[in-house]
């Protein structure tokens, strides 16, 4: 882009320079964020009432969520919106059964009412329980934790953010053949206060930045069109992520890619050796490993919605999950990870642990309720609720594939392939309810011929079965090829909740995988 940012703003309708909304931060603070004394008083009222009514355990989350969203298409801003949501959610254990109540009224009276409602719900349901809830022990924590960021996105002027998106759009539209560009950026600020009847008191702040965009090329004469979406880049970072990452380079690349995609030849269905880039492999890890190793699924607790798992509750230490070079870790401490936190939503300190070691499945994702059910004394800290009004339940940590111990380049992975495909970016993903059979697409797919990267193909999707797929993995990239991508809206549970979670990985090679031409079916 040769147009300067100032010139660009002057021509794009963004005329008010250097301005921001001063009351934004101020109003947020005034409204109660950081007011631990107020929240502590409300929490004490709720916990005391719940305990007095017979709860053997209770915890409360008093959370404020702040979001700012900007959406654009081509050379215009479609929407600038902000939201705040503040409320409390109280969880109680009575006669071994859970009850939960939540309200947007944050005061001692409303908290006591919520405690009464939660206890009544638990009592009414206790007769329906054949298993009484037992919680693994947890350390009492009195702590404050803030995610790492250097520039608070909520203190960055609005026109700076709009200018970024407009320049990104202009860069992609500068590529001949690009018909449409849409881009969005979302900033999320979670200010969480947790208190339990066991004495934990935890204050946390998490800031996430979600940039995404897509380019479309349409051939109006033939009615054909293709899209290249870049939607996996969210991180637990501040506005420095917008400034430091080469977004314009990606936008120009996505422009060229979508134009090439529209003209590319359809893939020939068949068996291929494939190299999957981190921008696609993160999603394969998410679907085939992340969800299959959730213990609540293996126990049947998600049978009515997300499904169960091909991994059985007794499989830890016994099930071969993949080839010996496959090592996967659960990690709620990974820098930048969307599921990274200081403490989970029942006050368990974040940690890192192996889920698959040397190809063997060795451990689960657990909570305080789940851990004892597989004979474990401690939770791995995977309880999460997406809102103050949501019941906390087991959610995925960052689950990441470890790179090779020594440097292995992408070119090296290609070099040992005679006929293959290199798959980048998010395409369509679909997997069965026990996480066996999956079909994943890619945003950009190129041929590999005799070890060299070749032309782009379209309409390709790869299908496999989770244990077969990971068993076929015979190459992973080295530390320098490792990337962390994530998904911002992972759905699970009833009522449905969304979770943001990241997966780090190097590119990896998989042998003899079925590839479909989805347009020829």
């Amino acid at each position, binding site marked *: 882009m040769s147009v300067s940012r100032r010139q660009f703003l002057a021509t794009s*309708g963004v005329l*008010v320079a250097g301005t921001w*909304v*001063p*009351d934004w931060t101020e*109003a947020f603070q005034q*409204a109660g964020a950081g007011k631990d004394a107020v929240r502590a008083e409300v929490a004490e009222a709720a916990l005391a009432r719940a305990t007095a009514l017979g709860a053997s355990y209770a915890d409360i989350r008093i959370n404020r969520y702040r979001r700012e969203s900007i959406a654009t298409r081509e050379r*215009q801003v479609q*929407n600038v*919106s*902000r*939201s*705040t*949501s*503040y*409320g409390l*959610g109280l969880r109680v254990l009575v006669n071994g*059964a859970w*009850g*939960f*109540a*939540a*309200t*947007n009224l944050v005061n001692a009276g409303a908290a006591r009412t919520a405690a009464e409602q*939660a206890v*009544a*719900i638990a009592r*009414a349901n206790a007769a*329906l329980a*054949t*298993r009484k809830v037992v919680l693994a022990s947890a350390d009492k924590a009195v702590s404050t934790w803030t995610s790492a960021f250097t520039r608070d996105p909520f203190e960055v002027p*609005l026109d700076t953010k*709009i200018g970024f998106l407009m320049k990104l759009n202009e860069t992609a539209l500068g590529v001949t053949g690009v018909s*449409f560009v849409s881009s969005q950026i979302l900033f999320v600020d979670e200010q969480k206060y947790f208190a339990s009847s066991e004495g934990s008191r935890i204050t946390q702040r998490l800031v996430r930045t979600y940039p995404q965009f897509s380019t479309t090329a349409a*051939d*109006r004469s*033939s*009615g054909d069109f293709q899209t290249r979406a870049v939607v996996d880049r969210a991180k637990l970072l501040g506005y420095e992520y917008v400034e430091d990452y080469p977004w314009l380079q990606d936008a120009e690349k996505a422009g060229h890619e979508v134009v090439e995609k529209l003209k590319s030849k359809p893939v020939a269905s068949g068996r291929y050796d494939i190299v999957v880039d981190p921008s696609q492999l993160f999603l394969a890890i998410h679907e085939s490993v992340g969800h299959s190793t959730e213990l609540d699924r293996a*126990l049947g*607790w*998600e*049978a*009515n919605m997300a499904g169960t798992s091909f991994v059985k509750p007794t499989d830890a230490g016994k099930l071969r999950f993949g080839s010996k070079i496959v090592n996967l870790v659960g990690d709620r401490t990974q820098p930048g990870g969307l599921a990274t936190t200081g403490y989970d939503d029942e006050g368990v300190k974040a940690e890192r642990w192996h889920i698959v070691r040397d190809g063997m499945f060795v451990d689960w994702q657990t909570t305080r309720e789940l851990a004892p059910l597989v004979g474990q004394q401690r939770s791995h800290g995977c309880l999460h609720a997406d809102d103050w*009004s*949501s*019941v906390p339940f087991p959610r995925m940590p960052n689950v990441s594939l470890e790179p090779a111990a020594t440097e292995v380049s992408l070119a090296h992975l290609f070099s040992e392939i005679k006929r293959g495909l290199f798959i980048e970016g998010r395409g*369509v993903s*679909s997997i*069965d*309810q026990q996480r*066996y*059979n999956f*079909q994943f697409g890619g945003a950009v797919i190129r041929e590999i011929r005799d070890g060299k990267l070749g032309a782009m193909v379209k309409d390709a*999707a790869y*299908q496999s079965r989770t244990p077969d797929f990971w068993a076929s993995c015979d190459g992973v990239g080295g530390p320098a090829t490792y990337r962390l991508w994530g998904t911002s809206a992972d759905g699970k549970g*009833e009522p449905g909740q969304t979770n943001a979670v990241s997966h780090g990985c190097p590119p990896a090679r998989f042998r003899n995988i*079925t590839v479909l031409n*989805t*347009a020829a*079916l």
Partner: protein
Amino acid sequence: MLTRDEALKICETVLAHVKSAGADDAMVSLQNAIESHARFADNSITTSGRSEDVDITVTVWVGGRRGAITGNDAGADALKRISEEAVQIARVSPVHREYVPTLGPLDYPAARGFAAATAEVDLAARAAALQSALTACRTAKVNGAGFHTARATATAAATAHGNRRYFQTSHADMSVTARSADGTGSGYYAGDHFDLARLDAKRIAEQAVGKAVRSQQPKAIEPGVYPVILEPQAVSDLMGFLNNALDARTADEGRSAFSGKDGKTRLGEPLFHPQINLYSDPMHPELPAVPATNEGIPAARLSLIKGGVLENLTYARYWAQQRKLQPTPGPVNFIMESAAPPVSMDDMIKATPRGLLISRFWYVRLVDPRTIVLTGLTRDGLWWIDKGRISHPVRNLRFNQSVLAMLAPWNVQAIGAPQRLSPFMVPALKLGSFTFTSISDAI
């Protein structure tokens, strides 16, 4: 729940604040919801809760610039704060090029589809309903998992140009998944209604249990192209993708399944079987909906597909203005039905020499928007039909199938009676061919 007067008073307060702060135009919308739910799994209650919230969204325009903010505090100070902040956002935003003045006073039909008792669930009655479902599962020695939820919502909106509206709606639904003890059979059934009293927990559980028992020990068949019968649940699992493609702007821009060649759309083309009708109707007795679109256009019956012909695409206010058309009075729900008398499930099965009976689909995703190719898997009940009778259960399969090809004039063989599966009313369909690409080991 907030009454009409209470809700509109909040809206009016915000309108007054934004006017004082300098807004030229504004819309305030409010949603107050009370939700109660209970989950069970492995034949035991798991989690259960209740929540209540108020969301207030104010959108303002100042000199053609737009700002929007949502908050959940209806206190006097908070209302003033979000009002002023919305104006501040607008002042520093670029000109909103798709601004359409907010609506003035309009008459709306009275909303149907609200049952007051759905707002506050009787805990003892719900426990009894859940117990009946759990008993059905335990008696049949299957593992039951399920979800019961009831929600009541008051929505209100007011604009600077005098539009005022307030609706109450309620929704209750229950679903059960039953899995056989040996892990080889699984069944699912769901029901929903706006009136919690119309939800029959025991019947829903019994349907799921029956499917679990009948689907045990499935046999594998080769992936390929088969005739199929889709139960209404399976049809509803695909319907959203067809409905999403009906947006006029996307079609006009050349990036939808209903975009034609040379910049045209496919309006008026007989793309579907001549007995297929698809429409939206807020007054439908079984599936009443809020009688206004999200933009506030009074909803009325809107025909989308009639006699297999693509009759209408859906126009939001801005795009309608650009095309010099009226915004469409919907959709607010989707009802698919046959122009001919419906065919019963039994008759469909009897008329099938060989094929598959499909209960539902899972993890359905859009593979190719050009022809609405979807992929996904069968789940919770798949059977082989041989010579007009259900023969045996079949292992689950992955499909890759175009919705346009599925509903094409040559592929639809019979259409059943529509069943409420909110926000759809859809029939069972008997189809000549459906493409499966691999086997799934999942039960």
